[in-house]
């Protein structure tokens, strides 16, 4: 069970307080009506499934209700950082 640092509460809390919401940094297209079916389909359904570093969107559901991002290693389950919405990860698969 994960031990997650909420960047808004600035505390570690048990995983039970959080919900995972999938891959992070998937922006809703600004003009959906201008998207082709393929573009919209990519936005809707296509997600990375990396072995290793992954950026995920989580929500502190039973806490402050804030959404935030987690950089996590999908192999070791180690959480390498958590950061607020609008911020960029400092740990990436390139770094």
């Amino acid at each position, binding site marked *: 069970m994960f031990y997650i640092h909420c960047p808004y509460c600035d505390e570690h809390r048990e995983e039970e307080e959080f919900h995972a919401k999938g891959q992070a940094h998937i922006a809703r297209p600004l003009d959906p009506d201008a*998207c082709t079916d393929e573009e919209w389909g990519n936005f809707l359904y296509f997600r990375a499934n990396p072995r290793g570093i992954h950026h995920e969107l989580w929500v502190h559901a039973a806490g402050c209700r804030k*959404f935030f991002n987690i950089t996590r290693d999908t192999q070791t389950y180690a959480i390498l950082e958590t950061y607020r919405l609008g911020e960029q990860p400092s740990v990436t698969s390139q770094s």
Partner: protein
Amino acid sequence: MTQPNRLNSGGRIDRDQPMQFEFNGRRYSGFQGDTLASAMLANGVDLVGRSFKYGRRRGIVAAGAEEPNAILQLGATEATQVPNVRATQQELFDGLVAQPTSGWPSLNTDALGMVGKVFGSLLPPGFYYKTFMFPRFGWKLYEKYIRKAAGFGRSPRAEDVDQYDHLNQHADVLIVGAGAAGLAAALSAARSGARVILADEQSEMGGSLLHSRDLMGGKPATQWVADTLAELAGRDNVLLLPRSTVNGYHDHNFLTIHERRTDHIADRAPEGMSRQRLHRVRARWVVLATGAHERPLVFANNDLPGCMLASAVSTYLNRYAVAPGNKLVLMTANDYAYRTAFDWQDAGRDVVAIVDSRADVSGHYQEEAKRRGIAVLLGHGVIEARGSKKVTGAVVASLNADGSAVAGASRTLSCDLIASSGGWSPVVHLSAHTGSRPVWNDDVLGFVPGETLQQMKTAGAVKGSYDLVACLRDGAEQGAEAAKLAGFDATPATTPEVDSWPEAKAMALYSIPHTQPNSRAPKQFVDLQNDVTAAAIELATREGFESIEHVKRYTAMGFGTDQGKLGNINGMAIAAKSLGQSIPDTGTTIFRPNYTPVTFGAVVGRHCGELFEPERYTAMHDWHVQHGAEFENVGQWKRPWYYPKAGETMQQALDRECLATRESIGILDASTLGKIDIQGKDAREFIGRIYTNAWAKLAVGKCRYGLMCHEDGMVFDDGVTSCLGENHFLMTTTTGGAAGVLEWLELYHQTEWPELEVFMNTVTDHWATMTIAGPNARKLLAELCDDIDLDKDSFKFMDWRQGTVAGVPARVFRISFTGELSYEINVQANYGLHVWEKLFEHGEKYNLTPYGTESMHILRAEKGFIIAGQDTDGSVHPYDLNHGWAVKEDKPFSFIGKRGMKREDCVREGRKQLVGLKTKDPKVVLPEGAQAVDDPKQPLPMAMLGHVTSSYYSANLGRSIAMGLIKDGLNRNGDTIYYPLSNGQVVEAEICSTIFLDPKGDRQNV
């Protein structure tokens, strides 16, 4: 009652506290301080079970968690039955009742030997593998025999009478194991002020020191243990958990500890005390001081009762004052085990011989044996145990230099106990739980913890360090290091000096050769619990299984509760030898939680019965209970389902409720509908982006129905949202969808549109909501409310008003889910029951009838109102529901779902669409979920058109009604379709409008 194997003095038992116990229907006695196993051995109980596959006689082998045979069923009553208890880990208490678990039809019947032989041939190696490859045939055939023959206990048939707790703990340093290394680690960490938890699976902390005869700092080892524990117990930053097994090492230093608080006291827990606890520990740093298990040597007939681990024999002698026999043959490949022969001799028993596989070894231990006059056979092995019911002799022979073949003639030594030691296997289980593969260490002749993946240190024998002085020092250092890393100022505790002899190099030996090849020699058991032999492993490698993981699946080695504690390394060694490669080349071994079995009680804790899941009640719940409501679970809510009167069937109650509502007036507790309060200057814009329909012009005092879609255009929730103020809205959601919708709103506000000034919060529990519906609704409300103008032209359908109802401030919404004249009265939850009762006080003359969720479903279906999640399933968009009227295409912002429902697949012809259905026979109610076809006579598999989503008998219409999805259904009004049912019946139905009653809406607009 005599205890023939009990020594007259010594041990850590209290001879002044005798205890009676029962095993297999016979009564025995033991002492306070015994384990069930030591007491059984003291009484000369040789036979504890029958083997899983071959039905062979089995006795106690070990003294701890690694015991493979003495797995018993405990419990004096049906409610206190506990399966899978290791007798070696169960403390004796007065009145303990134990039964053997394996063995059919009974433990002592030797006919079973024959049965065992039959099963042996039924269950060849690869049995599991082959069975699971062809489960349809194999499992059915074998299951009932296996279940019966294999034993391994049964669950109680009566409800557990004891309580179990979960405790959440935080620790700076969690130390696992309270042997020499663990105690030293605890001293270092505790003195630094860190919060320390020290957990040990045994009743007494001290590990091997409890049966050690070493002097530590000139004093008995047990004295050092006592002093250390006294210091630790005196510190309030230390939590000592004896009888507590750390069973799982999970992500982010989360560990689970299974504490048995009363299992050693009585059959059931004392009043007011929980029987067991599951500690859920989040530790900054962990020190694993889990020690090592001794490995037996594999030889022919090594499963005969009377074959034991050398260290177990020492434990029984020194800790429990039990000598399980008279004449010992000790076989070893190392010096350490010589101590067992010395212990045995000091207990006044006869050591027949020490059989040492090493040909040229001479040192302190050999000299001591010589001094004691004990015969030592160097370069020899016990190749076979002799005896029919128990050991009566040991066949010994000289071996070649690497122990791979018998080198000389064999002879038989008369004895009744064969103790063996092949060396030690570090207990790497917990480290392996973290995903770290153990690595082979040639110096240690065993697997040690691999790469460290978590905040974890290891100390002592788990690393393969077996010297007591080294273990103590390592423990002290690792304990200090862990505390330092956790942020404390720590220094290693000083540890006592120990006089011990240096040991000569141990020999890498796992199985003893026989004069016959393994396939023809008497069975040589590797895994006693799963009846896996050396020959079976060799067969597996011959059949092409080269990876140890495959060999394990093929032979079942290391399965079950055993998890390979005793046999895994020997099995790997045999596989490696057979494959002509090294042990590390053959693979490593991975262990998974739990280390030893955990009771369901401990897993469940208090989360059972009423506390299994939170239950939510409305403010009027007690009234519903008093008025005989049957309840339905909706999410976590308990909602009245219907209110049967005496003698009524469910359908009769529903008919009565539905008729009364449309004829006069009904009332529904609608408090559970999700309510979200939305405020802010951009609230209106925000709602417009979330819902599919228009919100720009909704005036204060007005309500509107809205559909909510996901980005793929599919409906997932619906409800009425009311404009409370220019910047203030109240959104309602389905009962089950409330939490999900709020999270959905937050998601979009926080991630996509943070620039919108909008705030939202759940107010579901703040309000009690009661819906009065029916032609007399206005009359009733008027009796209780004099500050709202209820005139039909001033308080119109889809308006809401603030006012006072029954003397209480109320929001009254004129909305309708029944199609009747209807008001939803919302008051502060605390006033709910008062207003509800007032309504009944005044409503009696109108035959005010409470109705539940089932009548609500019928009444809304009569009007064709959908229920999101019942008539939709995530593949249905608003146009499929014929709800295009609720989609405002030309809103300036591309609302959620708009683009999705324009995808090629969403606008094609022939989608499944929601229609009404009337069965040809009005009395037949279609089953929900039934699949429609055009031609019921077509060959299988039939082309299916869609399924029934809602179906009821409507008393108001005098017939059944249904809704369902039908391919191209909106273009097929009047068509006849068929529903072939699983019972062979075919129901004929006609496609119609979903609005069965009052299509113009006259009833709700009065």
